[in-house]
């Protein structure tokens, strides 16, 4: 680089950026533009989309994805994947249901045993990753397959059938249901408690990312692992912590599944892990790590919820759903990349 570049007169770190440019540099901007576009589109295409009651349904659909998309986004900022996230939700629900039933214990005992075991699965993922130094893709693929098998095998072995036995009449069920699966009705809008869980998780994750040391660690680990280690970032602890975050959210989602329907199907959850990753990517997370936001993942989940339900409201053939999803994913990512390039070129 020659010294003749005119820009070098000022130190670029001291240049004041206008609020607009700051906004352009935010990871979630592209997805927010996308969300507005999808919202307007379905408002016009589907007459029942704008009804208040529909809003509750869409928010609920978004929250069930969003609860998982938040920690998955954090994990992706930290540069890793978790393919076991979808099945872990089912595992968590199965554990608490079967433990309570078999031990004839208060439902809350099962819920906390499930929390411990699910967090342990998260630790296992993180520990294997940091110890073996294999790609997280391989490690969590292994966990994914093992959990899928364990879910079916153990459920069949313990309960005799592929679904668990009902725990609806056991002590503590009503209280747990209130925490994980209740709903309030405002006017004609049903709001499920998952929406509250979702918002709390977004706020918590955003606070961690932007206001704490752990947040800096996450960005550093995802950006350049070795440089981060050299500057004293506890790389291994950060990664294990991120996997535990995913496990915690899986526990919340799992308990929601259990207490909404009071039995759990052991074969479910397969494929959902990709949904969470898609939501995070639509929300501006880079596949390679080091960039993204929790709010972005929420917007991604919201786009997901609007699309999946909007297609039904618009009375389209659901056979095409995956096609629209794929197109949406591509468009959102392209939009993100474009916005970011513009933002970087200007600053």
């Amino acid at each position, binding site marked *: 680089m020659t010294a003749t570049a005119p820009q070098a007169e000022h130190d670029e770190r001291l240049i004041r950026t206008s609020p607009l440019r700051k906004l352009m540099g935010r990871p979630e901007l592209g997805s927010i533009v996308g969300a507005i576009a999808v919202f307007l589109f379905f408002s016009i295409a589907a007459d029942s989309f704008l009804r208040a009651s*529909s809003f509750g349904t869409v928010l609920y659909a978004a929250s069930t994805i969003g609860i998982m998309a938040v920690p998955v986004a954090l994990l992706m900022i930290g540069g890793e994947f978790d393919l076991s996230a979808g099945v872990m939700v089912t595992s968590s629900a199965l554990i608490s249901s079967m433990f309570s039933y078999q031990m004839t214990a208060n439902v809350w005992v099962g819920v906390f045993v499930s929390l411990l075991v699910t967090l342990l699965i998260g630790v296992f993922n993180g520990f294997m990753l940091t110890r073996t130094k294999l790609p997280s893709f391989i490690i969590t693929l292994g966990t994914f397959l093992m959990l899928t098998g364990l879910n079916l095998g153990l459920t069949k072995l313990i309960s005799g059938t592929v679904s668990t036995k009902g725990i609806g009449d056991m002590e503590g069920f009503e209280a747990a249901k209130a925490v994980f699966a209740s709903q309030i009705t405002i006017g004609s809008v049903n709001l499920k408690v998952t929406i509250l869980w979702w918002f709390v998780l977004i706020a918590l994750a955003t606070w961690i990312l932007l206001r704490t040391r752990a947040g800096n660690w996450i960005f550093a680990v995802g950006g350049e692992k070795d440089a981060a280690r050299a500057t004293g970032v506890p790389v291994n602890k950060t990664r294990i912590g991120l996997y535990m975050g995913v496990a915690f959210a899986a526990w919340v989602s799992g308990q929601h*599944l259990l207490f909404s329907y009071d*039995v759990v199907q052991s074969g479910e959850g397969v494929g959902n892990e990709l949904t969470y990753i898609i939501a995070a990517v639509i929300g501006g997370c880079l596949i390679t790590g080091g960039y993204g936001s929790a709010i972005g993942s929420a917007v991604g989940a919201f786009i997901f919820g609007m699309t999946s339900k909007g297609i*039904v*409201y618009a009375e389209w053939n659901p056979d095409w759903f995956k096609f629209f999803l794929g197109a949406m994913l591509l468009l959102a990512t392209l939009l993100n990349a474009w916005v970011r390039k513009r933002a970087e070129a200007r*600053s």
Partner: protein
Amino acid sequence: MPDTWAAGVWLNTPRPHPGVQREGHDVVARVRTGVRALGAVLAAVLGASLTGCSSTGGKRAEERAAAAAAQGKAAVNTPRWTFAMVTHSGAGDTFWDIVQNGAKQAAVKDNIDFLYANNAEAQQQAQLVDTYIDKKVDGLIVTLAKPDAMKDVLTKAKKAGIPVVTINSGTEESKAFGALTHIGQDETIAGEAVGEELTKRSKKKALCVLHERGNVGHEQRCEGVKKSFKGTVENLYVDGTNMPDVQASIEAKLQTAKDIDSVVTLGAPFADAAVQAKQQAGSEAEIDTFDLNAKVADSLDAGTLGFAVDQQPYLQGYEAVDLLWLYRYNADMLGGGKPVLTGPQIITKDDAAELKAYTKRGTR
């Protein structure tokens, strides 16, 4: 980010380079070659399809046969109601195509706007029902393969005043969940019919192939076979979404357990996989199946399959729409509080010839 910034400046600085001009030309030339190659491939494909006509099968044969698509026009003058069907089907399942064909035919006759959605995950299926309640449809048709997940939304539908008919699965729960009636096959009874038929054919050891883990109806079918069959029954779980795996699993089982003299698959597409597995394994077992499709009808006619048990999916779709219409129009309901059974119907070589035509148009 100073690093990227610096890199950007460096890249954007014009660099006089003798190769630049030529590189550009190369790119254009390469693109042109690409276009030409693509043209050649297209021409070849077009040529092949023009010269290589097939005189049998294909789209033209299908067009010659009666179309499966719902035909005719409304035979009633009731207002145009909207009925929605939500099933637990996975993507692209022939069985549910037949159900839909039946429902669409009834919808045409009854002047109904027919909507359809499906999802194999219980939670997602419940959410789909939710969306139709939001849409304020005039009638709902729901499958109860995973009944507990549907309880809440069906209560919600009832509260919203939307009549519900359950089809296919959920014989036991239908009434308790407030549905008007249930149209389908009692899976245990269907299994028992298979067991009796196997006994009649003096079989000793049967293999029941389950292609969907977690489906209660499938478990009941195999239980039913076990109950009425005089010989022994063994269950084999396979991954129904992976056909080569289904074949390999059955093949391995037939190779290890030589005394199996009959294989019962729970879905029509898997019968063919079982037939191929049997040939590979050199087994003498008779292949029988639940459900019917064009391939099964052909195989029954050719004698490679023993028998099939049909639950008449067309009827399930057709009757569901028609009964909802009757309820809306005249407050009628069929079944007297009991499920309306559409099966089991045992189909052998004798019936196959007639059914072949119907399977080809997608109504059996």
